[in-house]
């Protein structure tokens, strides 16, 4: 009996505490919607931020397309997208845009006897593989890049994402830059008309099929490849150097990019210069209104990201994301000052 009574007492106490906390939290929450790729880090930041400030963030990871639609419909305080909007579209909707987090895409293979990082590819070869032009793994084009690796005659099985995704956008964008044929025939988008292979839903689908199929090649987000110990490949970057995918290589790509001269931060981080830059890197972007109807909430959004830029690096590292380099953070906050106004036309961010 006493056990029961204790449990009930505890339950009542907890319930009472929750009833006290919830109204306060509801009143102060900010809401966002969009890209699925940064969802784990945004929600981790949000949890820590709520502990510190009491301000919660309700982020719905409904996809970049959905995020853009929601912010245009003004149902959320900010939208999030993996694919930056061009200045024209931003201006039409009165939106400002800034990058918030960096991540990378990694080719993964399933070949007997090949260890993670053992195989090296370049952009043109990767494009030919996904075009279905390279049929077997002992093709001379692959052998030339890997003179020391004993390549099996296994047939190539291409695996790509079937759902529209920012990961596919970065990957196809890189292939378009590396191969004129890919650019002509396929192009770059969150979903494309894939010339070869099998489509699988999400990172988990791609990794599931790749791990079952001998000779498979696919692409997944870096965090996913790392946490599941998948057989990633190295890449030859724009400077002709061989790089392995790790957070330094993504950060190098983000730091070497020419942010200062990119209008509205419209910059896709694929194929950036620099000897240590990973070629398939990308930032995830936040969309907010330049002239806020509700300046108090917008200021909360900016304060949240300011806090995340300055205090969120460790959390990002733990989840295998790459925080924005400091000089990019400075540029972002300068752009807030210049572009985001309150009702009276005064800068909201001081």
């Amino acid at each position: 009996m006493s056990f029961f009574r204790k449990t009930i007492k505890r339950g009542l106490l907890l319930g009472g505490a929750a009833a006290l906390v919830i109204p306060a939290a509801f009143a102060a929450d900010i809401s966002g919607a969009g890209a699925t790729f940064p969802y784990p880090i945004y929600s981790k930041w949000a949890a820590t931020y709520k502990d510190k400030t009491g301000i919660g963030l309700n982020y719905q990871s409904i996809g970049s397309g959905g995020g853009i639609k929601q912010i245009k419909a003004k149902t959320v305080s900010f939208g999030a997208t993996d694919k930056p909007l061009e200045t024209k579209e931003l201006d039409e909707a009165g939106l400002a845009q800034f990058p918030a987090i960096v991540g990378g895409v990694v080719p993964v293979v399933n070949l007997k006897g090949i260890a993670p990082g053992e195989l090296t590819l370049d952009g043109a070869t990767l494009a030919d593989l996904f075009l279905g032009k390279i049929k077997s793994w002992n093709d001379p084009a692959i052998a030339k890049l890997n003179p020391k690796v004993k390549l099996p005659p296994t047939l190539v099985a291409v695996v790509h994402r079937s759902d529209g995704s920012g990961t596919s956008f970065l990957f196809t964008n890189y292939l378009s830059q590396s191969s004129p044929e890919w650019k002509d025939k396929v192009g770059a988008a969150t979903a494309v008309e894939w010339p070869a292979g099998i489509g699988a839903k999400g990172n988990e689908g791609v990794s599931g099929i790749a791990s079952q199929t001998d000779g498979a090649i696919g692409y997944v987000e870096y965090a996913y490849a790392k946490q599941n110990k998948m057989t990633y490949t190295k890449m030859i970057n724009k400077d002709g150097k061989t790089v392995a995918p790790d957070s330094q290589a993504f950060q190098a790509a983000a730091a070497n990019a020419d942010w200062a001269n990119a209008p509205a931060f419209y910059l896709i981080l694929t194929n950036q210069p620099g000897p240590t830059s990973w070629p398939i890197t990308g930032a995830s972007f936040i969309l907010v209104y330049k002239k806020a109807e509700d300046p108090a909430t917008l200021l909360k959004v900016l304060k949240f990201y300011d806090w995340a830029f300055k205090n969120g690096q460790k959390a990002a590292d733990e989840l295998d994301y790459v925080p924005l380099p400091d000089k990019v953070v400075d540029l972002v906050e300068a752009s807030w000052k210049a572009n985001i106004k309150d009702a009276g036309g005064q800068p909201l961010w001081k």
Partner: protein
Amino acid sequence: MFRGATQSAAVLVLVLLGGVIVSLIHGSGPSIRAFGFGFLTTQTWNPVTEKFGALGAIYGTVVTSLIAMLIGIPVSLGIAVFITELCPPWLKRPIGTAIELLAGIPSIIYGIWGLFVLAPFLQAQVQPVLIALFKPIPGLSTIFAGPPYGIGTFTAGIILSMMVLPYITSVTRDVFQTVPAVLKESAYGLGCTTWEVVRHVMLPYTRVGVIGGIMLGLGRALGETMAVTFVIGNAHRIAGSILAPGTTISAAIANEFAEAEGGLYTSALIESGLILFVITFLVLSAARLLLQRAEQKAQR
């Protein structure tokens, strides 16, 4: 009062249905204007150049449902006959419960099981045998052409057949139980075998119910989304081989709607939803027509 409440509940369904049709047609407007009838006859699905045709998805929807029905109907009817006629009483309950539990499994579980268990099994054990078996036969050799990916239209059809199984089985079992014992006993008394009783007494007596159960299953197969998405390979291409990857309308919508950018892309997806609606409607009305014909014949 009671009459009014039930009436408004019934009218609500009609209003909802009408609302769905109107918003589907409205949403597909841009796509209908841009592609016209060609949307139904081309299989290009290129979000980059914004050229869309739904033929690949329509083909995949029809073929996967066909495979599901080819496997699902005989197995379901077999189970129903076994339970009502041949099963020892102590086994009835467990089999019946197992079938009903199958209906309760969420489709995502079927999808994940299909991807991680069924697909590798088919790839390693079944598909190579099928490919080798049908290689010398013209026609069938194209339908079962390799390579064995494991996932594809065929696998999706098999998963769907498992998903429609409980629907068809429980409906047919219930209607089989409505056959009056007198009819069956007299047929047995005349010296009929169990097969003859099923074929000439039970099936004619329960025809309407059985077809109803099959239609319920077919409806599920046509619209199933998640499980199919995982195992079909999601390619908007029509391949001669059923072992090759394909896609269905609902899988394409589930995959692409969230990230579809630009009005035309979204609109093309909505139009394919409209087409699925029309296909389902046609199938159901065809079934009704069939039933009416059969009843008229029986009355004559």
